[in-house]
């Protein structure tokens, strides 16, 4: 299997290339098939890897040396260990379902070629990122993913708002990407090495715990992760990114790209363990983001923005788990979140499309006639997101994180924030559910969805329920497959004592129910025309956009304008025109003095000199034999004389 590892990222890349290069020859409706087959290829390769035992021992493949400079040779090499295996399974599996869904969802779209090209390229970028065995290749995947997300968010680029959303996502994530790049440079300058395994080993061996360099490196990597995963303070791009098509939102902003930051931290976790303050910062950012996202989601009116803020908040849980050292649990939540959030986005997409591209949850509620499958799958996804106890996957993953949080430094404080977040989660998602599906509109329509849309919804719904059963909470009888399996690679988090765990579990099970009650109250108040206090503040995402506009964008624009007025108009343009005038004067001077004076006169002298020489030399060519003989004799005499007396 090792030599076929390249197929996992290679298959979607090949699909993208086929679509890009041979697109002229492919019919419009066949793009979806080509793209889905390429994704299916990747998924089959992942399945094959499972069958060939990748779950027990890592696979490794080095394709070729990318760059060779002296003794530094980064390679195109892939490593498939358990962490990567989880990620590629989720990415290729959910990616395949979303491709299937897109087939029907995007059927009416004109520009299928661009859509599927970027969708496939995105998947291959994500898979390269996950499988890369060195930081350079990881960064390549990282940037590829960023580029594709820009192109897919701004897919309907004729609408300036959507195009601006794409640009915003690109610019904001760039801040994080720059931090990550500097972190990579720093690591390289210290160890002269980019291979992940070697790098982490030597970092653990050479750096002391809490040393400045380790802290700085961990901070820079955290910066990259925060940008990509839309955590505070770089979360502003994600809500706007909902301008893209719904399958794109499901793929990029729920299941895969935003989890890249989580993956990055889990991958480089030895570095974070060397810098405990930074690791705690990860947890702190996570908790703040949980509360931030959940509270902002409470007040949204755009259906997809609710889900966007929910994603921000849920990734906060993963960051919290990472910060507490519970890497396996972060991955567990990542997996279940990928299932239920993709399910939520896809069913929301179906509802929005059936409602004639209506995004407002109140008006969607008035419209009614939603596809009933979308309603049920949304309900399952919402239950899983709210972590409804015992029956949903979200419960098991979120509950485990909450329990692990308690044992971390300042654990009870972090736990309290996370618990408030859990309560709000139930509140916002059921508020959205009640407003959309139990509005004043007529009952659900019975019209069935197209099969390629229904199938992914059914599969994801099933997974959203069952995926949690592989890892039951601490202290329960039943399987604990997940953490036992990942223990070798990622270690186990410290857990609080059993009694405390049970108390926490009871509270954790009650919180979603309280959240649903909160949702009922909220919806009743909202229907009665009494909105939540602070609605505007929450709806605008705590005013981060306005803050950034005042603090960063406007000064920057002012700077740009003043630079344009002063530097460009005066200095650069004035300088350039002065320079041009100077050159013109010099050129004119040259024309008068050099061309008419020196050059022409010089040439004249040269010509007359040559003419004179010609005449002189011509005289010797008189054809008179005796003259020639005289010249020869004179020459011979001269040479002879030189030889005898001169030499």
């Amino acid at each position, binding site marked *: 299997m090792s030599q076929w590892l390249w197929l996992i990222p290679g298959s979607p890349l090949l699909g993208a290339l086929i679509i890009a290069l041979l697109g002229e020859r492919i019919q419009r409706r066949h793009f979806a098939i080509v793209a889905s087959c390429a994704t299916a290829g990747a998924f089959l390769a992942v399945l094959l890897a499972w069958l060939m035992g990748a779950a027990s021992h890592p696979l490794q493949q080095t394709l070729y040396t990318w760059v060779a400079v002296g003794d530094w040779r980064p390679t195109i090499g892939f490593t498939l260990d358990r962490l990567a295996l989880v990620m590629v399974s989720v990415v290729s599996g959910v990616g395949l379902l979303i491709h299937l869904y897109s087939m029907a969802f995007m059927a009416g779209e004109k520009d299928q070629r661009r859509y599927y090209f970027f969708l496939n390229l995105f998947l291959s970028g994500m898979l390269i990122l996950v499988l890369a065995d060195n930081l350079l290749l990881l960064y390549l995947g990282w940037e590829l993913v960023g580029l594709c997300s820009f192109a897919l968010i701004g897919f309907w680029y004729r609408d300036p708002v959507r195009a601006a959303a794409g640009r915003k996502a690109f610019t904001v994530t760039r801040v994080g990407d720059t931090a990550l790049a500097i972190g990579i440079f720093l690591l390289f300058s210290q160890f002269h090495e980019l291979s992940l395994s070697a790098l982490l080993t030597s970092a653990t061996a050479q750096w002391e715990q809490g040393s400045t360099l380790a802290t700085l490196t961990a901070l820079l990597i955290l910066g990259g992760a925060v940008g990509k995963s839309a955590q505070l303070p770089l979360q502003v791009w994600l809500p706007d990114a909902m301008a893209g098509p719904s399958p794109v939102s499901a793929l990029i902003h729920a299941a895969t790209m935003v989890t890249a930051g989580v993956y990055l931290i889990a991958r480089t976790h030895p570095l974070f363990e060397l810098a405990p303050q930074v690791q705690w910062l990860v947890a702190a950012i996570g908790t703040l983001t949980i509360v931030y996202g959940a509270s902002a989601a409470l007040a949204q009116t755009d259906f997809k923005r609710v889900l966007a803020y929910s994603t921000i908040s849920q990734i906060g849980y993963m960051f919290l788990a990472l910060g507490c050292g519970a890497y396996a649990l972060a991955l567990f939540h990542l997996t279940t979140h990928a299932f239920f959030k993709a399910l939520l986005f896809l069913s929301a997409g179906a509802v929005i499309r059936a409602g004639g591209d209506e995004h407002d949850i109140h008006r969607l509620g008035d419209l009614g006639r939603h596809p009933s499958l979308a309603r049920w799958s949304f309900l399952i996804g919402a239950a899983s997101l709210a972590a409804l106890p015992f029956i949903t996957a979200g419960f098991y993953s979120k509950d485990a994180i909450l329990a692990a949080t308690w044992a971390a430094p300042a654990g009870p404080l972090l736990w309290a924030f996370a618990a408030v977040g859990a309560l709000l989660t139930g509140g916002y998602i059921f508020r959205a559910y009640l407003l959309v599906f139990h509005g004043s509109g007529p009952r659900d329509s019975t019209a069935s969805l197209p099969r390629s849309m229904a199938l992914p919804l059914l599969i994801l719904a099933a997974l959203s329920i069952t995926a949690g059963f592989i890892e039951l909470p601490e202290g329960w009888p039943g399987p604990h497959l997940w953490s036992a399996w990942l223990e070798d690679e990622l270690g186990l988090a410290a857990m609080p004592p059993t009694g405390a765990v049970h108390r926490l579990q009871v509270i954790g099970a009650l919180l979603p129910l309280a959240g649903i009650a909160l949702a009922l109250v909220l919806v009743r108040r909202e229907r009665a025309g009494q909105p939540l206090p602070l609605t505007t503040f929450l709806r605008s995402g705590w005013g981060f956009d306005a803050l950034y506009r005042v603090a960063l964008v406007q000064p920057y624009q002012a700077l740009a304008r003043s630079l344009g007025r002063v530097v460009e108009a005066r200095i650069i343009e004035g300088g350039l025109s002065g320079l041009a005038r100077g050159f013109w004067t010099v050129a004119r001077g040259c024309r008068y003095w050099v061309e008419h004076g020196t050059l022409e006169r010089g040439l004249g002298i040269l010509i007359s000199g040559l003419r004179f020489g010609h005449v002189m030399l*011509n005289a010797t*060519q008189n054809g008179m*034999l*005796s003259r020639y003989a005289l010249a020869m004799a004179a020459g011979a005499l001269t040479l002879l004389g030189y030889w005898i007396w001169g030499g």
Partner: protein
Amino acid sequence: MIPLTHSLVIAALLFTLGLAVVLLRRELLFVLMGLELMFNGVALTAVAAGQHWGNADGQVLTIFLMAVTAAELVVALILVWLAFQHFGAVRVDELSRLREDAKLKGNARGDTS
């Protein structure tokens, strides 16, 4: 025994006389005669040097020189005769065809300037 110096002086006189004839006389036949004189001067030098060092090479060279000169003279006389027949020339100055080309070139240059 004749000292080497005397022979060399005679040889030098012969060579210089020959050269003078070649340079000063214009008639083709006289030029040829002058050439013969120069050859003989050279031959005398070779013989005298051979005698002085007791080496026969000088004599051998002279015999070869006589043979070659005879042959050369044959060719040269034929050329003189042909020159007389074709161009009616007995003086070297009348044989200046190369000069004609130079004149043509001179005219061409004059046109362009």
